[in-house]
């Protein structure tokens, strides 16, 4: 029996767990998520990375801020009372695959030397999230929704090199390079 190093698999699962819990919490709270896209990361920008590819229900959002605008538009309900105005995402399942264990775009040579391909750090990960989104609910309960939809979000995450450098203040370990969203 050959020994298989599953560090990458496990690290990717944990990274996905952290990411998913953070991301949907932000959205449910009406807080920003644009800081988690490569588009707004200086290191990636300077290295010439194209903006994150964001496709929402078939519509391409040029910037993460456009996606935030769509989210805000979705929450818009001026006449609703507090118990009927929220949009709440509930994750039912997520899964993660490492699609490139030797990701190196934008990394310094030093980072490439420190983190080997089996260390679960320099990974490009596809994260697939599915769940239910409730429209018109209170923060406490999803019972009295006006509409309920299924959502599926597929992310491609890449390492946040800033978080790996020694004097990093910014904790997010991965950034979004691509997001494909559908809700129906």
């Amino acid at each position, binding site marked *: 029996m050959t020994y298989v190093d*599953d560090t990458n*698999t*496990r*690290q990717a*699962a*944990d990274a996905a*767990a952290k990411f*998913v819990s953070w991301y949907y919490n932000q959205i449910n709270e009406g807080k920003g998520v644009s800081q988690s896209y490569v588009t707004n990361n200086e290191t990636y920008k300077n290295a010439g*990375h*194209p903006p994150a*590819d964001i*496709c*929402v*229900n*078939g*519509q*391409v959002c040029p910037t993460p801020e456009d996606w935030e605008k*769509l989210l805000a*538009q*979705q*929450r*818009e*309900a001026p*006449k*609703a*009372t507090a118990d*009927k*105005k*929220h*949009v709440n995402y509930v994750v*039912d*399942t*997520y*899964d993660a*695959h490492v*699609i490139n264990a*030797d*990701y190196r*775009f934008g990394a310094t040579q030093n980072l490439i030397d420190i983190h080997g391909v089996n260390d679960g750090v320099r990974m490009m990960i*596809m994260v697939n999230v*599915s769940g239910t*989104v409730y*429209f*018109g609910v209170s923060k406490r309960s999803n*019972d*009295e929704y*006006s*509409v309920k*939809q*299924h959502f*599926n979000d*597929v992310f*491609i995450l*890449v390492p946040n090199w800033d978080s790996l450098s020694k004097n990093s203040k910014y904790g997010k370990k991965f950034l979004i*390079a*691509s997001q*494909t969203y*559908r*809700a*129906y």
Partner: protein
Amino acid sequence: MAPPTGPRGGGNRNSKPTARASRGGIAKHRAAGRTDRDGDVSMGGPTSGSNPPTGPSGRGTRGRGAARGASRGTRTSTRLAQTLKNYVGDGSRQPKVTLKILGVKQSKAASNPDGGVRSLLSFIERKADKDKKVVLGRGILEGDYVWVKANKDDLTSIMHLNGYQYAGANITIEETTEPFPTGSKISKEATDTRQKLLALLAKRYNIEQKLLDLSALGTDDILGNLGAIGSQSLAEKSFRAIIHVAGEQFKTVEEKKEGIQSVSLARNEISDVDQVFTLAYSLPHLRRLDLSNNQLDTLSKISKWKQEFRYLEELYLVGNPLTSLTGYATEITQWFPCLQVLDGNVVRTPQEAAEALKAWTPQPLPQLPSNLRDGENNVASIFLRSFFQLYDHDRHALASQFYDTESLVSISATPEPGRDADWKPYMKYSRNVQKLGGSRNPAVVQRLFTGASLIAELWRSLPATRHATLDQPELWIIDCHTFPHLADPSGQGFAMGLMINVHGQFEEADATENLYGTRTFSRSFILGPSKPGAPHPYRVLSDQLTLHKWTPRAAGTAPAPAVAAVPLAPVVNAANVASVPAVAPAVAGMPVLDEATRAQLIQELSRRTGMNAQYSELCLSGTANWNFDLALQSFEEQKANLPPAAFTATA
């Protein structure tokens, strides 16, 4: 551990509650009773200090209470202690047994308000074990028996009381596996009332119209017999009961929403909707409400419902004094965004209602057609066509053609709670990282299938499927785009990848019955360049299948967003490869087209551009090389230069 230090030893506090029985001699006159009980709580160790479990009512009663017999405080506080203990979590919850105790009916205690249950249980708790505290659960009197749950550890001590005398009667205790009679918490009168209310509902529910007719309840025989008429508070209570019982008849919110769409409360002498407010909570999705011929005299009498009934379409208030107020209709219309008919008059069109509702509740984002940005070669359409055809007919060939040693596959199924059986073939493979609880669970690694041979093996064990053809765009949503920075399999450098996300449905064969059922799914692929020598220039790096119960709604069929229903151009593209044999799918280059497909493309282009068949064919066969998108593009460019003959119908 030091040997037991006798009755007074404080050192036993944190040891196991060998707790001296409170009846034990001297101890009962001292503070031992308290020690005893505290000892019980403090099993959890240090937390005991912060638990105030006994409180004034229980403190110190144990000793004397025991001597006198049952005391309310004792049972309450010991139960509290038990609950706290469970809550604090000193180890796992103990297994419980169910006991049936016969004899209380014959005892003198039978005349107690609770039928003697409490005193019987106190008696048993007291007598069962003189060295150990025994705590019973809440007892229920059902027929001649008292039902109660007890810790399994205490069973032997309790059973030795079998045949004991209690308040002048012999008691028989038996262990049982019969289910604990939960329903019996409802008294006989309540059950009777319930039956009567159900009879009332049956009489007043119209299944065709989905109407619950609660008009003129004051003249109802059943309610009259129940004595619910005459007193205002009783009438309100019985209304709440009716609404509650009605709601209970439906298992889910959706069923209720479907089942009761109209309610009539006409002729009920309602002077303020406060009296029937519950209706708004029980049936928030109500579509038609009849409040006619009541005594609502000002708008304020109905304003409590202002924020409710967002989906109310018809409302009848005729026969109420308030209808003569000026501006009444305008005001009411504003309160209910979906209201279209008020007292028989149209106040909004359905379109206006949909528009008005937007201000009242968050709205889903519009749904656009498939978004295919897969470069120039239609790789996604070509791949998907081959993929689903092979997945349905020859999974082994599929694995060997498009998957290699580095390919990853996983499946996750998201059943509704309690419905795992429906998903049986998939559950054991389901890699729902959320449900598995993170990477510490070995299943996170085990359920990730790596390499073509393992993948083929997995697929072999899954049920046979039939996917709809991609020619039915209404059944599919496909988004894809290219992205940079995959590792190039040849060594150094970056390679482009293609992300494809598919939503669709397939029919699945039931292995035993050979019946087909429909499942809906989302599947995402990452395609990347193959290693040298592979059958295709690209391979599947990652394939994640999610099974769920939601039917994807392609654009155009969606109810709310008004998106023009245009045929999905990319799927027409996919028609290019319709005739390509499944075993050797053409991946790049010019696909071979049969006449039928060509004719189809010509027809489609003609329909989209208005050109006649001849020019459409010219356009397609020219530089576009039968690529529909390119043909459409070149039409747009050349439109101005085209002769009028291009748009006249050919004879």
